[in-house]
């Protein structure tokens, strides 16, 4: 996520041996805003309570 204008080289061996996963992600699914209301995330925990 985010705007990076340079390439991102990775070590293939490290990626493979450690079973790493790299995901590129743009924005969010259409349902994301509604899910907050449905209680998928806990707003109190977000502020350290």
């Amino acid at each position, binding site marked *: *996520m*985010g*705007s*990076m*204008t*340079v390439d*991102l*080289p*990775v*070590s293939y061996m*490290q*990626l493979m041996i*450690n*079973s*790493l*996963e*790299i*995901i*590129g*992600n743009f*924005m*969010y*699914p*259409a349902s*994301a*805003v*509604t*899910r*907050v*209301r449905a209680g*998928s*995330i*806990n*707003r109190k*925990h*977000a*502020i*350290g*309570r």
Partner: protein
Amino acid sequence: MTMKAWRLDRLGGDLRLENVPMPEVRPGSILVRVEASTLMSYIKPYVEGRLPPYHAPSSGFTPAGNCVGTIEAAGKDVWQLAPGQRVLVSSLFRSSENVADPAQILIGVTSFGPDSEKVQADWPDGTLAEYVLLPASSVVPADGFEDMEATQLAAVSRFVIPYGGLVRGRLAAGETLIVNGATGAYGSAAVFVARAMGAGRVVAAGRNADKLDILVRRAGRAVLPVVLSGDVQKTRPRCAKPQAAAQTSASTWLAVRPSRALRSRLSIRFGVVAGLFSWGA
């Protein structure tokens, strides 16, 4: 009927507050009276035309995407949204055509290639105006948030973006998340969202030590700040027990605002953090 709107003739051009005709409601659209528009954290360089990847409408337009507002009018072919409803406006608009690669734009911000430019030409204007005409699918009813001021609720747009990434990255309760760029607009939001989703620990990496301190004060002790100095040997967690960080095995790594230095850090993280799954930028 006219309204006031900020108009930008092109990226890098003149930004002026002007009187413009009120948009006419058309099928599938809704007219929203803007209560609070969320300025992008990068709006200054964007308006000044200093961000090469961004592509604005070819003629003048009203910039800025996300906002909180109230539906003023709904066009034909809009069925479940009605005037008077308070809504959150998302700048992210995807074509509903059932094709292999539906075009998407960020309304009032940018398009992404030829098909996307066609969408942008039909929906050129953003939310720095008294009213904005939008495709119906770009708004979400703000039910349940009646107690929040529009300016406070408008911050949802800062949080929903890292939320989208964390859902995609399958962050689960109790897991450790590393946020690279944690003092930025979206990175700091990612720290709070991750805690709200139940992350057990959030390693917050950023260059600004003061901002990291504020993050820890606000988001709690589950947040482990790491000041990035540009020198890997000097980069240490800011906590009483540095070894705790060294032993941390992160399951998700969120890079929301990576810099050129990321490449060197990434290779080192690969070596240090076992079980890391990174999602990069």
